[in-house]
């Protein structure tokens, strides 16, 4: 009696989780906008693209997010070479950086940038939450 229901429900579960129709363009655009703003010394605009937690943790007590971001002197992001989206999280690989993002109701926000890979360990990021 439950078998047809179970099969249908599992099919639904597979369809929901198989990643069909994933929007990779939006996180890629958000990452590119962040690096464009940093390169143009529009640090306040770049800070607006960070998640609230990341923007809050970045500055020291006596400075603003924009000042802290300017002091980091992040290198250029370059072109996007790959995007992976899993649920509400995404990683955007660029020629000069790897950017981590999270999806909020208002769009994608950067959780970490200026990241260098470390073997078997999390990325070491200059901007992170």
């Amino acid at each position, binding site marked *: 009696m*439950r078998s047809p229901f179970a099969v249908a429900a*599992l099919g639904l579960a*597979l369809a929901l989780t198989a990643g069909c129709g994933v929007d990779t363009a939006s996180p890629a655009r958000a990452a590119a906008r962040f690096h464009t703003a940093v390169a143009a010394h529009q640090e306040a605009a770049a800070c607006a693209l960070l998640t609230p937690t990341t923007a809050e943790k970045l500055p020291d007590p006596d400075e603003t997010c924009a000042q802290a971001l300017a002091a980091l002197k992040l290198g250029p992001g370059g072109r996007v070479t790959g995007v*992976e989206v*899993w649920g509400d*999280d995404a990683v955007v690989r660029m020629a000069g950086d790897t950017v981590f993002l999270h999806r909020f109701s208002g769009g994608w926000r950067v*959780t970490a940038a200026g*990241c260098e*890979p470390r073997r078997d360990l999390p990325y070491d990021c200059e901007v992170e*939450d």
Partner: protein
Amino acid sequence: MRWIKDNALSLAFLVMFLLALAGQAWSGAIHYNEEQLVNGLQPVSVWAYVTSSSFAVDVAENWQSEYLQFLLFIVLTVWLVQKGSPESKQPGEEGPEADREQLVGEHAEKNSPRWARARGARLWMYSNSLGLVMGTIFVLSWLAQSVAGLAAYNSERITDLRDPVTWGWYVTSSEFWNRSLQNWQSELLAVLSMVVLSIYLRQRGSPESKPVGAPHRATSVEG
């Protein structure tokens, strides 16, 4: 009314299943949102949660283990016996049994299912249909667990500033096998308990138990 009474067991389990699933969705969404707030992220709706990989993997990992449990119970009791258990056949009856005992082919009766009268592949398929369907649901559930688990695991990895992994990496990972085996061990213990405890203990009126006065050594006797 008569229909409800005749199908009360299935209906009771269906209602309990739906209530439990709804409860899992509701409580799971609350727990998920507590973690979201701790991590500085936005809470999600119950609908967003039940369509997430987190909910799907939790559901699928329990389903696969339940169907594996019943698959093993159905198939192993063909070949293995437990003396004194109402869940077992009599010692000496191991195997698929003769056509006469199974009422198939020329031994089928007037009210036997149509495929019980068939021969060849159709008879083989119908003769094993319970195990085949349970096995198919187990495999699909386990596959769903692997796909949903991969999505949930990769979301966590990105949050932890780590690269996502492939499906092949995930299904050979400790995360996947720990999720699977922690469910399997509990299901196998439950079957073992049922088989052994029902030798010595009784539940009056239950067909899963021997009659209260049946001797401990009596096998394949249901009350």
